[in-house]
């Protein structure tokens, strides 16, 4: 029995013709299952051009459209496996970004290639096409073996940030979704770039935008009250690249080894947390990084043959804060930071240490320390669950605790621990503000009890005074 199934949206209609499986007794009540499709037609409101073909077109169309929808959402390319038979379907985002070219390469007839069909879709039309496909996937009475399968794209396909100044430069990045028929493969043009909204705009350290420093007064007030100020440009005097360089050059260098050490650890943590695509780094990237007293990265400069072009492989552009003329940094710490090609972060004071860093003010009363140590062991034991897949050795940390028992500072003591930080209860328990670490300084203002904490694979926790 021939059956038609139609998925209609305001701008798009997907029509399938096929055969039902055997007619079941209660066919009056339930829609029969279409188990074979021999004709597929996809048409758009107000367009003469349409796609038509067999089941292979349906599969290729569904796959290309589904992958492109994901690209549209995230800006990350979804590679498509090559399907050898049937019409190839491809979607390409147009340069103007507001149109989507749907291209279909018909099967060559008698060895002669047929010109591809191209239909330009607006975003709403594209969405209706995606929705028609999703309704088909969700329909369990039509080709029930075809269902929506979604999987995130690998980080291999994530593009590095492109700095604003380079945006006009040509760069070849694949973006279209491709389901390619073997014979049509040479007809396929290079897809245009798609960029994620949040990564489309990069910036460089020398950027000269206005910036003001403002208090944290984030409120969720109503739009009316905010709308009036919406068109005012950011106020406050800008620091030009040259001014910034002057300020950095003129700023007092932080030499106190303890403060330098705390800023170094704070900076390392920021960088470790934000450095995502470590595999992209193919050679050691070396920077001179200037950091303020509050731990804000103020400027960075590639050195020792490192090219500024690769800044975006590092988390530096993401992290840099712009000082203003209102509040120029009075003192800075400078570090040599190396992002190595094997994904390791190295950071050291540019001019080395003048003296031995301490851990700031310390609690030394033995009774208080004993009590704090016990409380710390208890807190950690409750929460520590070793993941045997990740843990090959024990994790050793130095942990600084306030008199009230809050974990205000910690630092990995063995190499394994940096990457496994998030496996431990420590990040969740960390409250630096309990020791006065915050907006002004990264050095604890309250005395801390210092402990060595060993987290073991068997779930046990050992806490001893830090030597």
């Amino acid at each position, binding site marked *: 029995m021939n059956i038609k199934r139609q998925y209609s949206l305001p701008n798009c209609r997907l029509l399938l013709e096929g055969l039902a499986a055997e007619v079941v007794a209660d066919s009056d009540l339930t829609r029969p299952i279409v188990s074979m499709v021999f004709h597929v037609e996809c048409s758009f409101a107000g367009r003469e051009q349409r796609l038509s073909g067999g089941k292979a077109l349906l599969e290729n169309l*569904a796959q290309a459209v589904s992958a492109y*929808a*994901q690209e*549209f*959402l*995230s800006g*990350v390319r*979804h590679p498509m*496996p090559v*399907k050898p038979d049937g019409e190839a379907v491809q979607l390409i985002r147009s340069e103007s970004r*507001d149109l989507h070219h749907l291209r279909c390469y018909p099967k060559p007839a008698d060895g002669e290639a047929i010109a591809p069909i191209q239909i330009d879709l*607006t*975003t*709403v039309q594209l*969405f209706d096409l*995606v*929705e028609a496909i*999703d309704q088909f996937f*969700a329909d369990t009475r039509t080709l029930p073996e*075809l*269902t*929506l*399968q*979604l*999987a*995130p*794209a*690998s980080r291999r*396909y*994530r593009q590095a940030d492109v700095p604003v100044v380079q945006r006009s430069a040509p760069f070849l990045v694949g973006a279209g979704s491709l389901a390619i028929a073997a014979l049509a493969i040479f007809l396929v043009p290079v897809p245009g770039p798609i960029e994620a*909204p*949040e990564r489309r*705009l*990069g*910036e460089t350290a020398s*950027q000269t*935008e*206005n*910036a003001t*420093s*403002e208090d*944290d007064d*984030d*409120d*969720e007030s*109503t*739009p009316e009250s*905010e*709308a009036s*100020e*919406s*068109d005012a*440009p*950011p106020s406050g005097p800008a620091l030009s690249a040259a001014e910034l360089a002057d300020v950095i050059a003129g700023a007092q260098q932080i030499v106190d080894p303890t403060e330098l050490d705390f800023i170094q650890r704070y900076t390392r943590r920021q960088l470790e*947390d934000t450095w995502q695509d470590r595999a992209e780094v193919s050679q050691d990237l070396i920077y001179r990084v200037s950091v303020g007293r509050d731990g804000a990265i103020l400027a960075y400069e590639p050195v020792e043959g490192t090219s500024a072009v690769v800044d975006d492989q590092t988390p530096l*552009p*993401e992290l840099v*804060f*712009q000082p203003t003329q209102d509040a120029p940094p009075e003192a800075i710490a400078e570090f040599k930071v190396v992002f190595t090609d094997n994904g390791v972060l190295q950071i050291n004071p540019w001019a080395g240490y003048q003296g031995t860093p301490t851990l700031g003010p310390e609690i030394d009363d033995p009774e208080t320390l004993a009590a704090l140590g016990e409380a710390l062991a208890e807190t950690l034991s409750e929460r520590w669950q070793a993941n045997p897949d990740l843990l090959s050795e024990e994790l050793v940390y130095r942990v600084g605790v306030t008199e009230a028992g809050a974990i205000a500072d910690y630092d990995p003591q063995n190499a394994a621990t940096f990457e496994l930080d*998030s496996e431990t209860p420590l990040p969740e328990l960390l409250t630096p503000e309990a020791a006065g670490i915050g907006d002004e300084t990264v050095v604890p203002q309250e005395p801390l009890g210092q402990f060595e904490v060993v987290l073991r694979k068997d779930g046990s926790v050992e806490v001893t005074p830090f030597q």
Partner: protein
Amino acid sequence: MNLSASVSPDSNPPSHPQPLILDALPDPTPVPAECSPRIQQRLDLILLAIEALELGGSEYMLATARELDLNSVIDNRVTLWRLRCTNPWRRSYTRNSLTIRQAKALAIIASYRARQLTILIRQLLLAKQQVQEKGLPIEQHFRLSEYLERFRAHFRSRMNLRRAKVAFYLSHEPELNTLALELLGQLLFCTGTAGMQRFWISLFDGEVA
């Protein structure tokens, strides 16, 4: 279909009962302990776009959380605000990370709100297309210009000007408008039959091995 599914059951069931709606979204494999700053940023921005679409947007988000039985994840306005402050662009950025469960709850709320606003979202995107085809400035359309104005106001009042990207957006209004319009497009895709799943999985694009 040749795309492989990466769906696995939740390996660490939480101690309190899991809101059923969270199961509508698959866990990425391997299940990350927490979300990346990029994911947190995308979630906060899509919610910001919703707030620019409807007055009282954050109240509707809380109401939606209650309707969907997500109280155990988002119990009040402060919690919602804290979760959103995991966006590194925020003035009140906390350096905390979202758990997968919290991220799911935000993605679900965004998608449900978007679905309620389907007609408006479609109208605005059609208007944008028409205005642009005629070569007119986008401010010509009252409703669209209202959306953009509110989005910019929200962005300005909540985001940290000392972040270079935020400063860039705030001094380049057309770029900020483009961001608002891209988010509007993303919201449209959230309204579909599988919109919620599509949006959720897309958050992990470029985040997995």
